C-alpha cells in the first residue's frame, strides 16, 4: 500500500479520481532501492510497472556488439516498464538506479486484472498511453523527416 498523496505525484496517475487511485493503491508497493541496483535487465521477462517517486533511474540498452548506451534518465513522477503493463514478454531496456530511489511497483498482471474488472479505468489509462505513444511517434517521425530533408544529398 502507498499513500494516496504519493500516487498523485505520478504523472501517469494524475487527474484520476480518488476511487480509482484507491484501487490502484491496493495493488501497489512502495520500495527503496540503492544506487546501482538493477531493477530489470534488457530481454528479461518483466513483470512490474515502476513509478519513480524520488531519485533517478537510467534506462540502458546494449547493442549487438555489446556496447551499452544510456537512452534515458528517468526523473521523479515518471512511469517505466510499460512492457509489464502490456503483457509483453521481455523488456527492451535495462533499468538501473543512478542514485538511491524510492519507487512504486505494481505487478503488470494485477494492473491488467484491475482493468478487466473495471473497463472504465482500463480505457482511461490505456487511452493516456496511446495518446503519449502517438505523440512520441509523430514527433520522432517529424524529426526523422527533418533530418532527411536537410541532408546535403537531398537539399
Amino acid at each position: 500500500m502507498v499513500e494516496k498523496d504519493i500516487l498523485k505525484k505520478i504523472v501517469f496517475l494524475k487527474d484520476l479520481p480518488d476511487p480509482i487511485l484507491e484501487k490502484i493503491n491496493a495493488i501497489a508497493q512502495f520500495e527503496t532501492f540503492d544506487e546501482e541496483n538493477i531493477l530489470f535487465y534488457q530481454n528479461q521477462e518483466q513483470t512490474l510497472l515502476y513509478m519513480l517517486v524520488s531519485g533517478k533511474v537510467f534506462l540502458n540498452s546494449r547493442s549487438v556488439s555489446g556496447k551499452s548506451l544510456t537512452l534515458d534518465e528517468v526523473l521523479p513522477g515518471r512511469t517505466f516498464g510499460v512492457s509489464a503493463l502490456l503483457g509483453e514478454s521481455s523488456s527492451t531496456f535495462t533499468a538501473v538506479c543512478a542514485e538511491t530511489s524510492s519507487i512504486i511497483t505494481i505487478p503488470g498482471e494485477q494492473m491488467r486484472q484491475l482493468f478487466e474488472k473495471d473497463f472504465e479505468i482500463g480505457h482511461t489509462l490505456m487511452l493516456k498511453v496511446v495518446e503519449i505513444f502517438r505523440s512520441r511517434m509523430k514527433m520522432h517521425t517529424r524529426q526523422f523527416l527533418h533530418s532527411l530533408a536537410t541532408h546535403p544529398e537531398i537539399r
Partner: protein
Amino acid sequence: MVKIEDLKRINLLRDFPDHLLKIIASEAQLSIFGTDTQLITANEKADKFFMLIMGQVAIKAELTPGIDVILDNIQSGSSFGTSALIKGSTATYTAICQEPSEVITLSGPRMKQLFKENHELAFHMMFGVAKQYKKKMDIRAQMIMKTLDENPELKEDIKDIENLTLVI
C-alpha cells in the same frame, strides 16, 4: 457487416472476446480498393480506421514538395488510421494502396461513440493500439541502436532518443 472470421485475421483483434467481435462486425465494412487509391490524406481529419485483410498499403509522408518518403508498408493482418479512434485527431500521414487491397473499415466517429457506451470495447481497442505502437517504437529504437553501434559519432546529433524508451 463483415464476418467474425475475417476480423480474427487482424492482429489487433486476435485476443478480442467473441461478443466484442460481434459488435465490431456489425459496424465494419469490407471494401476492395484499387491500386493507388488514397485511403488517408496527411493533415486532413482522420475519420476511418482501417484493417488490411489482403494487399499492401504504403504509409507515406512528404519530405519536400515532389519527394515522398515511404515510412511503412502495411501488410495483411495489420491496421492503420489510429488517429480516427482518438478525439480531435488529424492524420499524420498519407496511406495509398500499392496493389488491389481488401480492407475492413470502421467509422471513427461511430467507434468513439461506442467507446463512450461500452468501456470493455474501448479498453480492448486501446490496449491493442498501445501494443501496436510499442512494437513500432521498439523496432525504431533497435534500428537507432544498430546505427549508433556502427556510427557512434552520431550520438551527439540525436536529441530525441529518450522518446523511444516509452517512459510515461
